[in-house]
């Protein structure tokens, strides 16, 4: 009997094709109001390009470590010289009117000169020479800090120069196109074909001569002719990569409908480049600038190592390494320390560049 009932029920409710539970309440079947329906539609949280990119960057542990290392270095480079009792060009053994105190030269880490030892004995506290001193009795720690400062600022400013020149050149070439593009790109090819190290060496020698006299008395004098010529060399040679990159981006972007839309509105060429094309290249620009800095630092160190970089007494990491070569057997750490700093800067900038690329341009990720 029960089976029969079940059978009947089954016949009656064969409508349902799959297992299904619901409780029929008459008041469920009254129309829903407009408001109730609208509540179901949720708009996703607003995300902008930057928010999205930084969120991805934050999840990248390697990149975050690099940011930490770099900000530590930058802060050190900016603030350490303020309270450090020694200066990079201070020869500790030399006091005017007195003979040179040779005991200050070539101190090992945490050693003190003779007068300092006397002071300590008399109960005064003397700031230690953490990395010792160099052969002229200058505190090596502050020289390394200054070296890093020089290297970082060379990297930064050179990259900004490259960025400006490359972006302008590349966007004009890509946007105008046609014959102008052809000519402009052949110029780029020619610069590309030059052996850059040779040109850098030649140029910096020549420029050094040219600038030596003219700089005297200007603000640039502090920088030294060598630094200026390094900037000029960078500006002249290294923008080509950036220009090519930007041109390629612009070429594909200018075919997009939103550029045509801007033209149909009557926007000027400058506006189209500024408002529509470049903002869409921004990820490429950030990434390649981030990768440009370490290469500039490396080149600067290399040139300074060869003696073509910053002029003494201003140190750079490369020139510190160079002068350390003389006493490399007795004072190996003087070579190792700047080398490690260079490696740290270059490596973390490179890894940060990779991280930025993954975060802001996920398509480029191989």
């Amino acid at each position: 009997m029960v089976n029969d009932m079940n059978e009947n029920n089954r016949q009656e409710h064969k409508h349902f094709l799959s297992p299904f539970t619901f409780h029929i309440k008459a008041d469920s079947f009254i129309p829903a109001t407009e408001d109730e329906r609208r509540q179901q539609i949720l708009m996703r949280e607003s995300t902008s390009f930057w928010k999205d990119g930084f969120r991805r960057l934050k999840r990248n542990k390697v990149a975050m470590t690099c940011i930490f290392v770099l900000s530590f270095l930058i802060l050190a480079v900016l603030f350490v010289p303020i309270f450090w009792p020694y200066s990079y060009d201070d020869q500790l053994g030399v006091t005017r009117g007195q003979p040179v105190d040779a005991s200050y030269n070539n101190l090992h880490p945490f050693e003190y000169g003779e007068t300092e030892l006397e002071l300590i004995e008399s109960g005064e506290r003397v700031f230690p020479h953490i990395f010792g001193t160099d052969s002229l009795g200058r505190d090596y720690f502050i020289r390394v800090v200054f070296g890093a400062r020089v290297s970082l600022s060379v990297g930064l400013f050179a990259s900004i120069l490259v960025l400006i020149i490359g972006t302008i050149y590349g966007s004009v070439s890509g946007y105008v196109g046609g014959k102008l593009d052809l000519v402009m790109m052949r110029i780029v090819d020619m610069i590309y074909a030059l052996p850059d190290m040779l040109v850098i060496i030649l140029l910096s020698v020549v420029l050094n001569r040219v600038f030596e006299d003219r700089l005297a008395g200007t603000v640039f004098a502090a920088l030294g002719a060598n630094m200026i010529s390094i900037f000029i060399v960078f500006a002249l040679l290294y923008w080509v990569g950036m220009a090519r990159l930007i041109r390629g981006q612009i070429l594909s972007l200018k075919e997009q409908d939103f550029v045509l839309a801007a033209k149909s509105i009557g926007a000027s060429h400058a506006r189209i480049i500024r408002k529509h094309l470049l903002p869409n290249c921004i990820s490429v620009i950030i990434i390649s600038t981030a990768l440009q800095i370490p290469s500039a630092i490396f080149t600067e160190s290399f040139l300074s190592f060869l003696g073509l970089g910053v002029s003494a007494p201003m140190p750079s990491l490369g020139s510190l390494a160079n002068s350390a070569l003389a006493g490399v057997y007795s004072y190996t750490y003087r070579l190792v320390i700047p080398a490690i700093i260079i490696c740290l800067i270059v490596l973390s900038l490179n890894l940060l560049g990779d991280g930025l690329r993954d975060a802001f341009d996920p398509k480029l990720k191989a």
Partner: protein
Amino acid sequence: MSDYIDHEYMVEVNNLKKYFDIPLGFFRTAKLKAVDDVSFFIRKGETLGLVGESGCGKTTVGRTLLQLYHPTGGQILFNGKELHTKEEIQAFRMKAAMVFQDPYSSLNPRMTVGDIIGEPLDVHHLYKTPEERQARIRELMELVGLSSEHATRYAHEFSGGQRQRIGIGRALAVNPELIVCDEPVSALDVSIQAQIINMFEDLQKKLGLTYLFIAHDILIVRHISDRIAVMYLGKIVETAESEEICDRPLHPYTQSLMSAVPSRDPETSRKSQRIILEGDVPSPLHVPSGCPFRTRCPKAFARCTEEVPLLREVAPNHFASCHLLEPKQE
């Protein structure tokens, strides 16, 4: 001002030609005749539908009309006047706007919706204070059915239909008289297409707009247009009132085009006899001699190879270019 008012035609295009040079290698180029000797007119406040298959040149017509391409030959009259100088063209840009096919690539991904809609205002300096600009943007967003709270969002946060509304809002910013709509609904879902089409119709009524509506979907073009022009390989082959051309197509190409549209009604679909065309559309780089359609035309005969048929009035207000439709010569 006075000489504008009397003019019946907002747009008059005479023998428009637009050829592109296609590079084939060093120093060698081929002429691509995208638009070849096209003449038409659009009356004030009407919608002209421009139909054709891909590569027939309909998009080029729209863009050349908006002075985005420089025509190779022919004449474009806007309110009875040709545009020559830069200033004239810049003034024209405030009277004519464009709506694009792809709602994804036609909006700058790095700009907020407010900035996209407000760009025409910026370009033409159409406001005095930032508040005025904001107010106008809000007004435009509400006009196209978007919530004005969303002005600070980016385009990628919106669905295809909403993005197309943003595009229409941008087109309306300068209070244009003419809007060229280049396949404005073909990238959208069926259920959204109808929303956008209705909006186009409402805006036309409200603002007295004139449309050039370019599309390949005949059902939609038929619904929105007053008159339809059919293009094939850079030429207009037939033009007439929209009902006339859909119900009584005269040119063999239009006939097959109309019959190729699958009916949305199962009964009519089963009954209907389709004219299936043979072969493919020839490349616009190698347009056949004589009538461009002769290679696929089921009714082609010797004369079609030799002579280009001219667009002539074959019935009242019904123009077609086919040798078969010419009055019999005694």
